[in-house]
């Protein structure tokens, strides 16, 4: 299968190599987004993700299709987690494989950057004394 597009409760980062590995691919590039301990010097207890799943999957599908049109890729993976995630837990994995490294490096960057712009997923930062929906307000 050329594309893997998923929204899951728990991300297993060990799966992605087998999903992208391909006899025609000399390069595999993967980005993993994880929960960082501090935001603006404030300690984060957890992040909570929610999604409009049917639309999020459609938007992720569109992004993967655009990447496949733009670069010569053999396989693409886009997987995002939902629910509450603690520090160091993976929340998103995107990756691509291609014959040579340039295509998969560029595509990988495009996949995560575009996902962050258009896919209907929302993140709430939980600090010790407050919670904040990320990017909601100026």
């Amino acid at each position, binding site marked *: 299968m050329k594309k893997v597009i998923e929204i899951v409760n728990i991300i297993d980062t060990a799966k992605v190599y087998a999903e992208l590995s391909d006899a025609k691919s000399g390069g595999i590039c993967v980005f993993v*987004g994880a929960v960082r301990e501090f935001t603006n010097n404030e300690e984060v207890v957890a992040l909570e*993700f*929610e*999604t*409009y799943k*049917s*639309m*999020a999957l*459609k938007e992720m599908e569109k992004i993967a299709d655009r990447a496949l049109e733009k670069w010569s890729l053999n396989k693409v993976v886009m997987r*995002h987690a939902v629910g509450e995630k603690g520090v160091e837990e993976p*929340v*998103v994995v995107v990756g691509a494989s291609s014959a040579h490294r340039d295509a998969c490096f560029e595509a990988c960057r495009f996949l*995560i950057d575009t*996902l*962050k*712009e*258009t*896919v*209907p*997923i*929302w*993140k*709430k930062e939980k600090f010790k004394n407050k919670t904040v*929906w*990320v*990017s*909601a*307000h*100026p």
Partner: protein
Amino acid sequence: MNVLFFGITKDIVGSSEISFSDGFKPVNVAELKKHLIDSYPEFSKLNSLAVAVNSEYADDNVSLMGNEEIAIIPPVSGG
């Protein structure tokens, strides 16, 4: 007409879905947005407010029949 809310808009409205009990039937996305901003002034403080019709982003001029799945999309923050 039912409208779905996510993220901060769900918190503002206090529900993940509402139906307009007053019989309000917007003809397009712009009218729906105006009605929501009038009803929930906090919406106007958000960085952006998009509308999805049948799970696709919809511009202000997209017409509404009343049988679509409509969702309010506050600023996204995945990744």
